[in-house]
C-alpha cells in the first residue's frame, strides 16, 4: 500500500524501531526506488579532498572526536514487463552528502542534496551541534584506500541499451506463456542500481567505491478452478550485465511457472509443532531474521538483544556455523567497503554452536572495544550508518540433503520463505512460507498454503540437528531496520529443525 512517506519517514522511523521487517519477495509493482543500484561518468562528481577537509574542519568546529563526510551519487534503472508488454521504464538520479559528528555515544547528522558549497558548510555546521566542550583532535592528512573488489561487474548495466534488457523480459514472458495454459499472468523486471560513494573522515580515511547491483525477476500466477497460486524466481547480486542472458532468463521463467503449477493444488497447512526441513537457499532469510538481527552490535551494546551477554557461550547446536560475509563474490549484500569506509569482512558469528562475534559499526565497536567487522551500512546519504548484515549464511555441513528429508516421518518441507520479522529483545520471529510441502514417511508430499513459522531464535538454533552439504547463497532481499532499507544476501544448506511451531489452519 502506497503512502506518502516523504516527510513521514523520519517521524515514524524512530518510534517504530522495535519491529524489523524484511521484504524478501519479488513484487512486480510498488517496490520502485528501493531495490535498484550503476555508474555514469566518473570524474568531477565528487568534491576534491581539499574541500572535504574544509567541511570536516567545520564539522569539528564545536568539539567532537570524529567527523565524516559521505558523498553519494546513485542512478537507478527499472524495466518491467506486464501483460506481454514492456510497460515501464524508469530512471532516477540521486545525489547528496551526509555529515556526521560523533562525541562518545552521541551522533549529530545532517545532509544536503543541494551541493553548492554554502549549503554544504551549513549542513556540516548543523551536524557539529551535537558536540560541545571537548577540543577536537583536528583533521588528519588523508590517506587514500583502494579496496580490492568483491563485485562481479564487467559490463555496467547502466550503460546497456534498453533493447537488450527488454529482450530478456520478452523472452521470459514468451517462455512462461507457453509453459502451461493455467498460467494466467506473467511479469518480469530488470533493475540495476549504480552507486558511487566517496567517504572521508577526520581520522584521515579517504575512499571511493562503485557498487553495482543487478536483479532480474520473473513472477507468474496460475488459476485452475477456484484455486490460485503464484510462482517467482529471481537472480540478484553485485553483478554486471554479463551475468544475464537469454538462456538464464528462459530457465528462470520455467522455474517460476513450475512453482505456480506445483502449488496450485495447495491445501491448508496444519497448525502445531512439527519438524521442518528447509531447502538450500531461501532458508537464509530465517537466519537473517531469527538470529542475525539479534547479533547486531547496537542491540548488543544497549543490552536489548537476547544475545547481549552470550559471547563465547554455546547458543546453537554444534552443527551450526553462521557467517556474515561482506566479501562474498558477487553477493547482493557484498561490499568492498561498508558505508563508513571499513573493508568488507567475512565474520564468523557462530562457530560450531558458540557465539563468536557481533556485527559492528564504528560506534558500537568503539564502545564495546571489539574489532570492526565492516557492517556499518546506510540506506543513502540521508541516513546515519547502523550495524547491518551483508550476506548472512549458514555454512555447509556433512549431511546428504536427501537423507535429511528421509529422516522426517511427518513434518514440513520449506522451499521458499516469503518474509518475516523479529523482535531482537525476545528473539521471537515469524515467517510466512512462500512454498512449502508436507513431508510424509520421509518423502516430500502435497503442497501447502498459509504456512507460518514461529518461534524463538535461541530455541531454533539449539534444535537444528542436521545440516546439508549443499550451501546456496542468494540475493534479492531488502531488509528494513530503523526506517532504512538495505539489500542483504542470505543462504543456507538444506537443514533440519527438530521442532518448530507451525501456524496453519487445520488442526
Amino acid at each position, binding site marked *: 500500500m502506497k503512502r506518502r512517506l516523504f*516527510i513521514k519517514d523520519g517521524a515514524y522511523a524512530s518510534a517504530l524501531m522495535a519491529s524489523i521487517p524484511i521484504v524478501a519477495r519479488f513484487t512486480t509493482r510498488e517496490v520502485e526506488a528501493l531495490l535498484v543500484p550503476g555508474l555514469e561518468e566518473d570524474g568531477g562528481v565528487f568534491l576534491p579532498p581539499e574541500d572535504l577537509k574544509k567541511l570536516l574542519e567545520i564539522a569539528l568546529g564545536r568539539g567532537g572526536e570524529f567527523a565524516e563526510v559521505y558523498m553519494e551519487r546513485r542512478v537507478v534503472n527499472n524495466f518491467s514487463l506486464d501483460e506481454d508488454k514492456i510497460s515501464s521504464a524508469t530512471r532516477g538520479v540521486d545525489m547528496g552528502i551526509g555529515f556526521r559528528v560523533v562525541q562518545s555515544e552521541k551522533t549529530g547528522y545532517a545532509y544536503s542534496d543541494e551541493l553548492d558549497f554554502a549549503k554544504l558548510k551549513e549542513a556540516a555546521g548543523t551536524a557539529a551541534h551535537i558536540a560541545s566542550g571537548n577540543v577536537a583532535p583536528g583533521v588528519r592528512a588523508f590517506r587514500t584506500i583502494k579496496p580490492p573488489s568483491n563485485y562481479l561487474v564487467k559490463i555496467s548495466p547502466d550503460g546497456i541499451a534498453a533493447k537488450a534488457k527488454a529482450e530478456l523480459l520478452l523472452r521470459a514472458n514468451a517462455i512462461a506463456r507457453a509453459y502451461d495454459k493455467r498460467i494466467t499472468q506473467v511479469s518480469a523486471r530488470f533493475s540495476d542500481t549504480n552507486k558511487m560513494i566517496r567517504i572521508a573522515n577526520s581520522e584521515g580515511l579517504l575512499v571511493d567505491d562503485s557498487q553495482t547491483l543487478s536483479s532480474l525477476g520473473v513472477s507468474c500466477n496460475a488459476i485452475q478452478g477456484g484455486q490460485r497460486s*503464484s510462482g517467482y524466481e529471481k537472480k540478484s547480486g553485485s553483478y554486471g550485465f554479463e551475468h544475464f542472458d537469454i538462456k538464464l532468463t528462459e530457465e528462470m521463467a520455467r522455474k517460476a511457472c513450475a512453482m505456480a503449477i506445483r502449488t496450485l493444488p495447495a491445501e491448508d497447512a496444519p497448525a502445531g509443532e512439527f519438524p521442518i526441513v528447509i531447502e538450500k537457499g531461501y532458508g537464509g532469510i530465517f537466519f537473517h531474521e531469527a538470529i542475525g538481527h539479534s547479533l547486531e552490535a547496537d542491540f548488543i551494546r544497549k543490552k536489548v538483544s537476547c544475545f547481549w551477554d552470550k559471547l563465547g557461550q554455546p547458543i546453537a547446536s554444534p552443527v551450526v556455523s553462521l557467517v556474515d560475509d561482506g566479501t562474498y563474490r558477487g553477493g547482493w549484500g557484498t561490499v568492498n567497503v561498508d558505508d563508513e569506509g571499513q573493508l568488507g569482512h567475512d565474520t564468523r558469528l557462530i562457530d560450531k554452536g558458540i557465539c563468536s562475534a557481533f556485527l559492528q559499526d564504528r560506534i558500537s565497536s568503539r564502545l564495546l572495544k571489539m574489532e570492526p567487522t565492516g557492517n556499518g551500512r546506510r540506506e543513502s546519504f540521508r541516513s546515519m550508518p547502523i550495524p547491518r548484515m551483508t550476506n548472512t549464511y549458514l555454512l555447509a555441513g556433512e549431511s546428504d540433503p536427501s537423507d535429511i528429508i528421509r529422516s522426517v516421518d511427518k513434518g514440513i518441507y520449506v522451499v521458499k520463505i516469503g518474509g518475516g520479522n523479529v523482535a531482537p529483545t525476545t528473539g521471537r520471529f*515469524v515467517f*510466512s512460507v512462500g512454498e512449502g510441502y508436507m513431508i510424509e514417511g520421509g518423502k516430500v508430499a502435497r503442497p501447502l498454503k498459509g504456512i507460518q513459522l514461529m518461534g524463538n531464535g535461541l530455541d531454533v538454533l539449539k534444535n537444528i540437528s542436521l545440516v546439508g552439504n549443499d550451501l546456496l547463497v542468494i540475493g534479492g532481499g531488502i531488509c528494513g531496520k530503523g526506517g532504512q532499507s538495505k539489500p542483504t544476501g542470505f543462504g543456507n544448506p538444506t537443514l533440519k529443525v527438530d521442532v518448530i511451531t507451525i501456524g496453519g*489452519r487445520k488442526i
Partner: protein
Amino acid sequence: MDFKTLGENIVARAKKLGADEAEAYLQRSKSFNVTVRNGEVETLQKSVARGLGLRVFIDKRLGFSYTSDLSLESLEETARKTVELAGITEAKPWQGLPDFGPGILPGLDLYDPEIAGVPDEKKISIAREAEKTGRGLDPRITNSYGASFSDSEGETGIYSSRGISYAFKETIFSFGVNLVAGEKDAMQSGGWSSVKRFFKELDSVEDVARIAVQKTVEKLNPKPVATKKVPVIFDRYAAPSFWMGVLLSLDGDSAFRETTFMSDQLEKAIASPLITLADDPTVPRFVGSMPFDGEGNITRRNVIIDKGILKMFRYDSQTARKAGVKSGTIAGRSGYRSMPGASFLCVTLDNGTESGDSIIHGIKEGLLVTEMRGLGTDATTGSFSVGCGGFWIVDGAVAYPVDGVTLGGSTLELLKSIDKVGNDLDMRGGFNSPSFRVAELTVGGKK
C-alpha cells in the same frame, strides 16, 4: 524558483521535447529528529530535502524519472531522458494522464505554523521526559531502547499538462518511547508514540509513557497455548494490520487480472453486516489526511465495504481505464521517486456498539490479539495466517499473556464471522479500527 513556476516549466519543456502529456510531482521537506537514551542525546538529525518526479506519455507510452537535483541543467536532462524512456516502452491503450481536470482544493488545515517556533531544546526535553517518566513508572522496566521526537514540514506540488496545478503544505510531529521489561532471557520490549499534525495536539508525555510501560510489562512471562479453535478478539491496535492485509487483496488491477481471491466479490457480501469500511483522507487536521492524491485527484470519502457488501476495488487512472471503470480512482505515491499507483489513503472501520466488557463477555476460552506480526491475508489465495502476541481469555476475562501463537483461517470466512465490533475507535494514522471479535479461528501453538 517556486514550485508552481518550476513544475509548469518542466511540463512545458517535456511537451516541447515531444511528450503528448506530462506531469511533474515536486516535494520539499525539512525534518528534525532526536533520539535520547538513558537521559542522554544519542542522535540528532536535521535535514532539508527536495526532488522532482516527471511522468510523460508519448503515443500512450510511459516514461518516468526523478532527480533530487533541481538545477536548471539537471531539469533539462531529466526532461530529455524521460522523453527518451517513453520511447523505449510499448504503447498500452489505457496509458495517459488522468481524465479529470482541475478542481478546488479543500482546506484541510494540515500545517502548523508553530513548527518554526518550537525550540530544539523543547523537543529534546520532551523525548528525555518521556523516557524518564517511563523508566520511573514501574520497577519491572529494566532498560530502554530510547525515546525520540521528530517533526517535519513539507510541501507537495503536482502540475500537469491537463491543467492540474496544486500544492499543499503540511507538518507532522511525533514522539515516543520504547522500553524493555524483565531480565536476561525473559526480556520483553514495548513502546508507544503520539503522532499529530499540530504540536499542541500531541498527547501528554505522561500518557505516552504510561501506555508504553503498560504495553511492555503486560507481556512479561507469557505462557504457551495449545492448538485449538477459539473466539478471537483483535484489539484496536492490532486490528489495523488485519485491515491492511484485507485491503491489499482489493487491488483493482489484480481483480481485473484475476490474481486475487477477491476478483469476483464485487457487490457481494464479503463480511459481516457489522462491517463498514471507508477510505477518507479528508478529516481536517488529521495525520492521515491530504487534499489531493498521487495523481492530483481531489480526495473524498469512498465506502469500500458497506454493511458487509464489497463496494469497490482501488484503481488508479491507468488501471481504471484498462478495466473500464469510469470513476473513483485513488492513487497513492510514496514520494517523488516513485510513480503513482492505486492505493487507499486513509482507511477507517466504522465504530461499533460493543463496550470492552461486552465484547469479551461470554468467551469461555479465547484469544485477545494485541499485536500482529504480519498482515495475515495472502492476497492471491485468500488464506489467512499470521503470528501474533496477546492474551489468553478465560471465563470472560483476560487471564495471562501469550506469545508464539499463530492464527490460521480463510480471510473471507474470518470477515463473515465477525460477530461483535467495539466502540473504541482511536484515530492514529493511515489505518484505523475499533476492536472486533471473530467467532472462531484456529490458534496454533504447542501440540
